[in-house]
């Protein structure tokens, strides 16, 4: 018994980026999740959404709410990350200058996601794409 929902995120679509996180927030409020946990999910979800828009060729955010745990999966197709350990260090970023000028992609993305989630797994295949799974205990 669970609730799940999929959100598509297009590459380079900064104008609507943040919409998926907003919708996720509203749904979790309706489900009665505590606002503290929602905020962590919103922060991690927003980072994820931005990563999809900035670094990938597009992908999906999958929300899964079950008793005891909320799972957020980010799955994209795109260049992938060559050195995951390096990407997990704070401050590291591959964002292009133009993206940085918009205030996005200043590093921190992955570590910020990990810091806000209770569980964090990442697998990436260069040239194929990246999969991230975050869990939040209720």
């Amino acid at each position, binding site marked *: 018994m669970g*609730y799940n929902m999929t959100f598509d995120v297009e590459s380079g679509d900064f104008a609507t980026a943040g919409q998926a996180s907003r919708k996720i927030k509203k749904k979790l*409020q*309706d489900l*009665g999740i505590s606002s503290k946990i929602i905020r962590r999910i919103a922060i991690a979800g927003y980072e994820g959404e931005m990563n999809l828009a900035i670094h990938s060729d597009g992908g999906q955010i999958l929300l899964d*709410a079950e008793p005891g745990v909320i799972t957020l999966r980010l799955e994209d197709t795109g260049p992938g990350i060559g050195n995951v350990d390096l990407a997990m260090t704070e401050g590291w970023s591959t964002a292009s200058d133009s993206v940085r000028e918009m205030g996005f992609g200043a590093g921190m993305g992955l570590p910020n996601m990990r810091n806000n989630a209770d569980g964090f797994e990442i697998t990436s295949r260069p040239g194929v794409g990246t999969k991230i799974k975050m869990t939040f205990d209720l």
Partner: protein
Amino acid sequence: MDKLFHSVYLDRSKCKGCTTCLRNCPTGAIRVRGGKARIIENKCIDCGECIRICPHHAKLARTDPLKSIESFKYKVAIPAPTLLGQFKQRYSADRILTALKSIGFDEVLEVAKGAETVGRSLEFELEGGRDDLPMISSACPAVSNLIQVRFPELVGNITTLKSPMTLTARMAREQLLANSEHNGLKDEDIGIFFITPCAAKATEVTKSLSAGDPMDRIDGAISIKDLFRPLSAALGKGKCEAGLHTASSEGFSWAVSGGESSYLGKRRHSLHVDGISNVISVLDEIECGRLSNIDFFEGLACTGGCVGGCLTVENNFVAKMRIEMRAENERGNVVPALSEDDLRTFYASGDMHREQPLEPRIFQPLDEDFDKAIEKMNEIERIEASLPGIDCGSCGAPGCRAHAEDIVKGFARKIDCIFVLRDRLETLARLTNEMLQMGQPMSEQEETEDESK
């Protein structure tokens, strides 16, 4: 506050159920039921959007009539800074305040004075460092309400400094009571009235009568709109009383978006945003943790700031220009009444801060039981998928999603959607037709079949 009071209300006799307000309410607080609008109390933030937009003037704000001041022996008017933007430049601020006093008040004290105190104290609030940045202004009650309703996690970011209105009321009452030997006034003799540009402030005034420190209470809120005619009539009459206008240009600039932030100067990163939908989109970003490098966020629900309040008279852009021109002409005229040291002493006394921090307004989940909530959520999504998705509002909810939610919560029926109704009627008509057409021949056929057996 357990009981919610709202200044904004509906005049049922004027409402045509046209659904215009429905789609313009930022918190989805309106439904049209039985041909009339209804406000869902715990979602309404008193922003006044529906008052502005209703083509039939059916949405109104409850404020006090001028004659309500008569029940007090000593009457004090505390006008919002916006008042100065309602009249042409050729009327000096003293002239405007003289007119205000002349229509029945014993004393006038500008809320811009309280604004000065709050503005200068913002830096103290930031000095010690804060867990949650940006610190959020408490000046606009509609924005504070919005945060309580839609952004519960940000409630702690709102500064606990009292609003300029509250501090001004307190200053006026304290001064009068400190002189009671001379003026012979007792607490209950004093009636303090806020001259309000908006509904949200009127609600805040009503709340002050039942909650918080009694010294902060405000006895009534009179709208700028209601006073505009008597004030206009009084402007040309009598002698202008000098010295009524005591506020600095920085103080009355709070009428315009950015006036408050300017107190922090360049040392701090502050962001000021006006218009409720703009405020919502920035709060969304703050909640997602994107703006923690900013020290201060000033969000005002009305376009341009308080000059755009739903109970003002003058066009908000014109009023803004007038405030800015007055500020330009008066820059540096007023030296702050409190020295830096006195201000710090006041700040440390605790009287400048609200006793109880704001609390999130309880958000009602679909069900207290998580399993059931999930079930209902799935049900909502199934129903939503079966609705046309054009958010026409004719069902009485602000959109198809909201209608699906209302159905699952038991507040509405699926056939309140005219498209669903039309489909059902079509099906019904087709079936009836089929039955009619089949009626006679069918029975004959059956009979013949029977005979052939």
